[in-house]
């Protein structure tokens, strides 16, 4: 019994539970919008595109979060601009832009002698988070959460039916950019704590899981947050016991819940449908 | 072979999608070559499902579609079934030339590597000349006008040697001149013995160029010559409340030519029916006998 409670005795583990849960909650809220908007690749793209910003900020000696944010936003804006000014499709443009930016970041990384570990940027270091990083991640996460909760109906309409939103006089473009800014902020806040890989999954899987379980948007956000935070805690816990990568364990826990929803969801679950047929 | 008679027969076609939705139930009709037939129905009426079944894209859970008595898949292998996609389903910036697209109609005749032979090039040239696009063969398809874009795909169907040609909503977003050019082209193909099926929800243009109609609403409500099928009763059954019906008997039309007409429209080209429910044609050439017969009835 003691062995199962052991993780809770360490300060760094409690910190990991807190940060993991927070990042998971913010990611889950945004994932609901991204899944409905068809922007799953956007989270993937921005989270890779922050690398050159982090490197340049490091070289210039300014806070890494600022560089990361600028670079993530540049990726989103450049994608939109190239798409509307050339014949290339959106998904292709996104692939070109983010992989190009990541490559530049890698070249900068290998040219810059630094104390940074690429592993930590890519896969996070949730068990070794410093207090300053905690505060940074925490405050960004709260700001994003607050804005999204306040604007959720507007953002939902913009994601769901942009032309209708435009027709009723909503500021579609600013709201779309707002979503991108929130997305970039979330990614900046989470990348340094949990790494690129986990961020990508945290921005897709919870929203999709919730979509299988409910058809109401407010409920969907609640379900996404609950499953995401739950799997973050489970992942941190399991990774302590198995000594495996924390980020990987969290992602796999999220996937596990998705598979459960896929099989057993009340309305659209695979087994339910089979039983009915 | 080319001129052998052609019959297309759908028998009790029932299509159920994997999600359990039965889009079409017991749809039956039969058509012969040398026909332009309209497939008419509202969105969600199963019209596009019937279209897909005719092309062999969906397999009916019950019933069958046969071309000259043989299953549609065999006809596909012969290249008999040609298809002209809706304009909005085509990626117009795809890097292919007019010639490339028409050559795609010949794939069925080519070997494993799809290398064109002289006969394929001749067929493509003939098809392009027939639709008047040979001069533009090296254009990228996005650089064509709306009417030319349509004709490229008709040329593909011709090059393919398609005996049944299916056109999916060919007149959406097309101007009147283009529509008339296309109709003229379809008439030529009909005279050559092809069976042309046009899916449309534009009622008004149907009597102008289609000699047969299949009315669809979850099943085939009626099929046969346009004059017999296009009655107000049938149309109301097919379209339900979607159509707005004006009775102009006591309006200016009546004063103008002394006859009453009924206009049925779904906001595109209107369908005009005479007092006894006959179709009023815009283009009367070739229909003189029909019209004079009616005038006798009217007296």
């Amino acid at each position: 019994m003691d062995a199962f409670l052991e993780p809770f005795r360490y300060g760094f583990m409690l910190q990991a539970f807190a940060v993991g849960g927070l990042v998971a909650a913010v990611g889950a809220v945004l994932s609901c919008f991204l899944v409905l908007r068809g922007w799953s690749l956007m989270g993937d793209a921005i989270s890779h595109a922050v690398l050159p910003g982090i490197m340049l900020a490091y070289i210039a000696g300014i806070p890494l979060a600022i560089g990361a944010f600028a670079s993530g936003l540049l990726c989103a804006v450049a994608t939109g601009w190239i798409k509307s000014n050339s014949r290339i499709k959106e998904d292709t443009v996104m692939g070109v832009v983010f992989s190009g930016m990541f490559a530049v970041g890698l070249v900068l990384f290998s040219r810059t002698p630094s104390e940074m570990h690429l592993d930590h940027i890519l896969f996070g270091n949730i068990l070794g988070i410093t207090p300053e990083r905690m505060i940074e991640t925490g405050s960004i996460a709260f700001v994003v959460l607050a804005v999204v909760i306040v604007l959720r109906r507007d953002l939902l309409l913009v994601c769901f039916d942009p032309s209708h939103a435009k027709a009723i006089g909503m500021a579609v473009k600013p709201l779309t950019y707002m979503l991108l800014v929130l997305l970039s902020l979330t990614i900046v806040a989470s990348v340094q704590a949990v790494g690129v890989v986990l961020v990508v999954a945290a921005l897709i899987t919870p929203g999709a899981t919730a979509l299988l379980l409910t058809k109401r948007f407010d409920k969907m956000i609640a379900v996404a947050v609950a499953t995401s935070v739950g799997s973050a805690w489970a992942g941190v816990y399991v990774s302590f016991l198995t000594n495996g990568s924390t980020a990987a364990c969290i992602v796999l826990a999220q996937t596990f819940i998705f598979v459960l929803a896929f099989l057993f969801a009340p309305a659209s679950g695979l087994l339910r449908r089979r039983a009915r047929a | 072979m080319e001129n052998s008679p052609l019959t297309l027969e759908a028998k009790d076609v029932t299509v159920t999608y994997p999600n359990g939705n039965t889009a079409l139930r017991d749809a039956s009709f039969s058509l012969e070559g040398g026909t332009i037939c309209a497939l008419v129905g509202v969105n969600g009426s199963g019209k596009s499902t019937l279209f897909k079944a005719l092309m062999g894209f969906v397999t009916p859970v019950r019933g069958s579609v046969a071309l000259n008595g043989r299953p549609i898949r065999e006809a596909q292998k012969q290249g008999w079934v040609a298809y002209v996609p809706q304009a909005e389903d085509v990626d117009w910036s795809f890097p292919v030339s007019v010639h490339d697209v028409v050559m795609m109609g010949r794939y069925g005749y080519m070997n494993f590597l799809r290398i064109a032979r002289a006969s394929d090039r001749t067929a493509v040239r003939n098809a392009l000349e027939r639709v008047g696009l040979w001069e533009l063969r090296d254009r990228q398809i996005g650089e064509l006008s709306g009417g030319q874009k349509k004709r490229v795909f008709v040329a593909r169907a011709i090059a393919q040697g398609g005996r049944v040609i299916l056109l999916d909503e060919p007149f959406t977003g097309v101007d009147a001149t283009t529509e008339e050019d296309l109709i003229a082209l379809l008439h030529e193909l009909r005279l050559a013995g092809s069976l042309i099926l046009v899916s449309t929800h534009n009622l008004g243009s149907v009597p102008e160029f289609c000699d047969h109609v299949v009315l669809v609403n979850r099943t085939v409500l009626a099929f046969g010559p346009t004059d017999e099928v296009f009655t107000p009763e049938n149309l109301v059954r097919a379209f339900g409340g979607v159509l707005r019906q004006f009775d102009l008997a006591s309006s200016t039309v009546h004063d103008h030519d002394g006859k009453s007409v009924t206009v049925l429209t779904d906001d595109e080209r209107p369908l005009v029916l005479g007092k006894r429910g006959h179709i009023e044609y815009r283009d009367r050439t070739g229909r003189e006998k029909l019209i004079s017969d009616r005038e006798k009835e009217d007296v």
Partner: protein
Amino acid sequence: MNWLVPFHYEYMVTAMWTSALVGCVCGVLSGFVTLKGWSLMGDALSHAVVPGVTIAYLVGFPFSVGAFVSGLLAAGAMAFVKIKTPVREDAVIGIVFTAFFALGLLLISLFKSRVDLKTIILGNILGIAAGDVVQLVIVSLVCLVVIALKWRDLMLFCFDSSQARALGIRVGWLHVLLLLLLSATAVAALQAVGAILVVAMLVTPGATAYLLTDRFGVMLIIGGVFGAVTAFAGAYASYFIDGATGGCIVTLQSILFVGALIFAPKHGLIATRRARG
């Protein structure tokens, strides 16, 4: 500095030629990927092969076999979940590939001493083993031959799959064939540039070629030459830039893409601006 130094080392010569071959295959295939709108698929498969590669290394199997199996499993899982749920395709792809990638990371973190994370994530063409070179060459040549034989069918599949069906061509097979090619090239590119940058190899050459020509066959050739030349030059440059081969190759590709985006004779920004007046 002597510019010819890289050519004096056998490992550099091997790396440059192998990269060029892999770059060429990816470049040719990228024509299909960009026009079919499968950029996310390329990204996803390159991440999804990671657990297969890891397991193959652990049990001493040829890595390409492991990667291939794992890529196909992922593609199968995506297809299955997509058919059975209302979740959009892009989200489904995102869920599946992050799950596979996380599984790979977990395995790597559990067997740290036996698999090098950096090799898989960032590629290591400069230190590639002779046996792996043989695998790469075989995989690449097979893909090139298959594309050379079936490119017209695949073009029709990308352009108008309904027409292919109307002709009685087995569209399902073409779909699977393209997925097989994509998995195989993702495996090859993994060695050259690493899992994260494979997407660039599978998208950027095609996007660049698309800006330069209106003919599909020409586009494939431009893509292939572009991929081969940039990969060769990138590998060469990485001799001077401390081993970040993938970063160098993809940075080079991105620079050339931007060049094409601006200066392409017909579809470049300058040309379209001028045409618009």
